[in-house]
C-alpha cells in the first residue's frame, strides 16, 4: 500500500463500481487500485455485497397463506358493489322511496280533511251555543 496519495472512500468506490465517476477520476482510481491492495480488498468486499443483492431470491413465500383473506376481501367488495351499483336495484329503491313519500302525503291530506270536516261539523253547533 502507498501512503502518499488519498485512498478513495467507500462511497467513491461505490461510484466507481456503478460507473458514475468522471473519466479523470476513474483513471486516477484505476491507477490507485493497481497499487493499493487495501483498496482492492475494500472494492472486492463491496462487489461481493452488490453481487449478493443481485443474486437474492426473486421469490419469497409469505409466512402464511394469504389467499383466504384476499378472497374474502374480493368477495366482500363484489357483494358491496352489487348491492350499491345495480341500476335496477337503485331504481327500485327510488320507486319505494316515492311510494312511501306519496303514502305519507296521502295520509296527511286525509287526516287534515277529516280534521277539517270534524271542525266544520262542530263549528256551527259551537257557534250556535255561544
Amino acid at each position: 500500500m502507498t501512503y502518499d496519495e488519498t485512498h478513495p472512500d467507500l462511497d467513491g468506490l461505490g461510484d466507481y463500481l456503478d460507473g458514475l465517476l468522471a473519466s479523470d477520476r476513474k483513471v486516477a482510481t484505476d491507477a490507485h487500485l493497481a497499487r493499493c491492495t487495501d483498496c482492492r480488498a475494500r472494492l472486492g468486499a463491496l462487489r461481493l455485497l452488490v453481487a449478493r443483492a443481485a443474486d437474492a431470491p426473486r421469490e419469497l413465500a409469505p409466512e402464511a397463506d394469504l389467499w383466504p383473506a384476499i378472497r374474502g376481501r374480493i368477495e366482500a367488495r363484489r357483494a358491496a358493489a352489487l348491492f350499491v351499483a345495480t341500476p335496477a336495484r337503485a331504481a327500485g329503491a327510488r320507486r319505494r322511496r316515492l311510494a312511501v313519500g306519496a303514502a305519507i302525503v296521502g295520509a296527511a291530506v286525509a287526516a287534515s280533511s277529516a280534521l277539517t270536516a270534524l271542525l266544520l261539523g262542530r263549528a256551527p253547533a259551537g257557534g250556535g251555543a255561544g
Partner: protein
Amino acid sequence: MTSGAREGPDGPDGLDAFVRRAQAGDVDAYEAIYRAHVGRVHALCRRMAGDPDRAAELTQEVFVHAWEQLGHFRGGVVLATWLHRLTLSLTLEQAPAVTAALSPRERSDFERAIDALAPAARTTFVLHDVEGYKHAEIAHLTGADEGTIRAQLHRARRRLMEMLSG
C-alpha cells in the same frame, strides 16, 4: 433497465386463459394467478417493508387492488411486469414507515441486515442493488433527486458492510 424490474416471463404455466377468466369475474382463476405470482410480489413487499406483518398486509393489498384493476390489463405487457409495477407503486406509497425492530431468526443474515436499514436507505438499496433500477429511475419513482439517491445508496452499503462483517 427500462421497466426497472429484473423481469421474467409469466412462465410456462399459460396464465393467459386464467387472466381472461379472472377478468370475467372468475375468482378461482384469479387464485391460480395469485399462486403463480405471490412469491415475486411478496419478495418485493417483504424487502421494502422490512417487517413481516406489514409485508403480508401489502401483499394482500396488491392482489386486491390487482383484482380491481385487472379489467385494465391488456396483452402486450407481461403480467409479472404489470404486477411488479403495481406492487412497487403501492409499496412506495405505503411501505417504509419505520425501521424494522427485529426480523425473524429464520431469515438469512443478509435479509435481516436489509430489514435493519433505515427506511429510505432500505428502499434505495432494494430498488438499486436487488431490483436493478438505475439512480435516475429511483429518483423519478420516489420524487427524490439523484444526489440524494446516491447518498442513500452509499449509506445503505456502508451500513450493510458493517453489519455483515461484524
